[in-house]
């Protein structure tokens, strides 16, 4: 199979998955007790009897489920996720405003995780079963057993409250102040990374140990390459595919973690938006957001899948 064909097949797969996801999202929120009309009426100052029915009719909520779903989906495809009835802002616009913060946070968390996990894994694999490897193993197991919001709180207490090196909460936009922007995201992204580092590190360490037993590693040693070359030029690349898979699988968990961490650190991202949406029973907003996150997740995995052929020439044709 050629690379193009593989991509095409994956793309078809992607569309099917997205359709399923959108249906589930819509169904789920429809099954919840109460709807937009009730919320609107309950929050208005002088509700009149029959108002609920009236608003339902107005919003098209009296239509059968499938009709409403198809309509919603049709709009969603054209980028129209409806209007938040709390703020009157189109949902797509609200996502657009908040998205850069969350994406930046995710990227920083991944970069920090990989920057720590990869060298650590290589060093541990090289000294496998020796003191260093054992210490790293104990350290990462400990780290993994602490939820990342706890890590975040601890970091805030140490680096923001006590040492006053970093801001405790709040966000500085990138356009305003690059350094300030990075500083404002440092604690939350390290907190997110704390859950990923142990995972990435263990996967890559085991994979490196396997690779280091390959014949071609012996060949690399037999021609006198330095240990560094053997590890990083010869052994690292063939060990990466499994790590890439794990990165992909964990994008979902990472997004989930982001929602909470954003709240703790007061970041104006997707997480805080969802939180306020749920608090306000802003169904349209929540529906749009969940659909968006699901799509982002599926898409991110699609991209991760596309990385494999770049790592292994045998798959790439």
């Amino acid at each position, binding site marked *: 199979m050629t690379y193009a064909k593989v991509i095409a097949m994956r793309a078809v797969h992607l569309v099917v998955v997205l359709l399923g996801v959108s249906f589930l999202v819509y169904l789920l929120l429809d099954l919840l007790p109460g709807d937009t009309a009730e919320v609107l009426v309950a929050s208005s100052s002088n509700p009149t009897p029959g108002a609920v029915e009236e608003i339902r009719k107005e919003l098209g909520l009296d239509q059968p489920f499938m009709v409403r779903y198809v309509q919603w989906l049709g709009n969603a495809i054209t980028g129209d996720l409806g209007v938040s009835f709390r703020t009157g802002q189109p949902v797509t616009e609200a996502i657009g405003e908040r998205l850069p913060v969350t994406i930046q946070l995710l990227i920083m968390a991944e970069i920090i995780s990989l920057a720590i996990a990869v060298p650590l894994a290589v060093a541990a694999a090289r000294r496998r079963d020796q003191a260093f490897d054992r210490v790293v193993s104990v350290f990462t197991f400990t780290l993994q057993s602490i939820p990342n919001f706890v890590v975040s709180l601890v970091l805030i207490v140490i680096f923001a409250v006590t040492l006053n090196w970093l801001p405790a909460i709040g966000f500085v936009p990138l356009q305003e102040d690059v350094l300030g922007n990075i500083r404002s995201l440092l604690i939350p992204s390290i907190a997110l990374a704390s859950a990923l580092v142990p995972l990435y590190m263990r996967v890559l360490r085991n994979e490196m140990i396997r690779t280091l037993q390959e014949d*071609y590693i012996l*060949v690399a040693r*037999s*021609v*006198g*390459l*330095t240990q560094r070359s053997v590890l990083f030029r010869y052994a690292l690349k063939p060990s990466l595919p499994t790590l890439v898979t794990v990165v992909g699988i964990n994008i979902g968990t990472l997004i989930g973690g982001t929602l909470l961490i954003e709240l703790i650190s007061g970041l104006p991202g997707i997480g805080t938006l969802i939180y306020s949406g749920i608090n306000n029973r802003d169904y349209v907003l929540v529906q749009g957001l969940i659909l968006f996150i699901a799509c982002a997740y599926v898409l991110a995995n699609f991209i991760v899948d596309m990385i494999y052929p770049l790592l*292994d*020439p045998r798959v790439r044709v």
Partner: protein
Amino acid sequence: MTVEPILEVKDLRIQFKTPQGIAEVVNGVNLSIAPGRVHGLVGESGSGKSVTARAVLGILPRNALHKREGSVRFAGEEILGLSEDEMRKRIRGRRIAMVFQDPMTALNPVMRVGKQIVLPMRRHLGINGKEAKARAIDLLGQVGIPDPEEKFKVYPHQLSGGQRQRIMIALALSCDPELLIADEPTTALDVTVQAQILDLFDKLRRERNLAVLLVSHDLSLIAERCDEVSVMYAGRVVETGSAISTFEAPQHPYTKALEEARPSLENPPHTVLRTIPGRPPQLTDLPHGCSFANRCPRMTELCLDVDPPLEPGPAGRPVACHHPVAGPDEPLGVSVTAAKERIS
């Protein structure tokens, strides 16, 4: 031999830590190879040929004990005690190179073959990428790869087994070593490709005065291609000397048995081959005396008590045996009942 040997191994001993205890895998290996000569190393599977080969380069498996007895002299210098760093910088790939058995797994599957050849050259010869590339392409031509410029850019999976082994040889030769260790370099290849690869070694040896240590369990191949041969059994060299005389007039009962177990074209069809009865000893629990005693038709009580030293035998070549075979017509079996009873 009047020429100074390029490699001289004396009484080399290597042990491994295993779950069953300490395995004495190499128990006093002696080898001497002169420049421009091909020296064969034969022996059954498990006799310690690969471990010996790897010990010369200092690339033993991780469970090998650090305590290494004996001596490995290369070009007059003792290299057994050299640091990892020295070995990497001055010896491995630079002056001693190795070709491995399985060309399917010996090349990095995710790196272009050209780069694999270029990396050691850049390290050892201090040349830039362009020079290294030109040299690599030239080398690919020399080892018989068609379209060297094209093949420089491909990945291993795009090549046949024979081509990969040629690439492996080009990689080994990239820094112009003085000694090439080839550990069963043709076992994984079909017969015609085998002959081509061996011809290539022959050409290189003549053109570059390269010394070759050719490891194999294929007696015919060794007899045909080697100048000298050393026969290994249970981690020891039990007999050594010129290939022709060793196989024509074997002195050690093991060599003789190997020779008789070898299929030959001269035999009439359907001749039943003699196999050697019994099994090699447990390496974690070697006997006091000769390791071959329990399988040897000439064994006496002396063999069970004293390990025979490697000394010139009746044919003048070194042999480690108390009762060496004197001539080609002497019967192999000299049954000695007292000793037989002791081991049963």
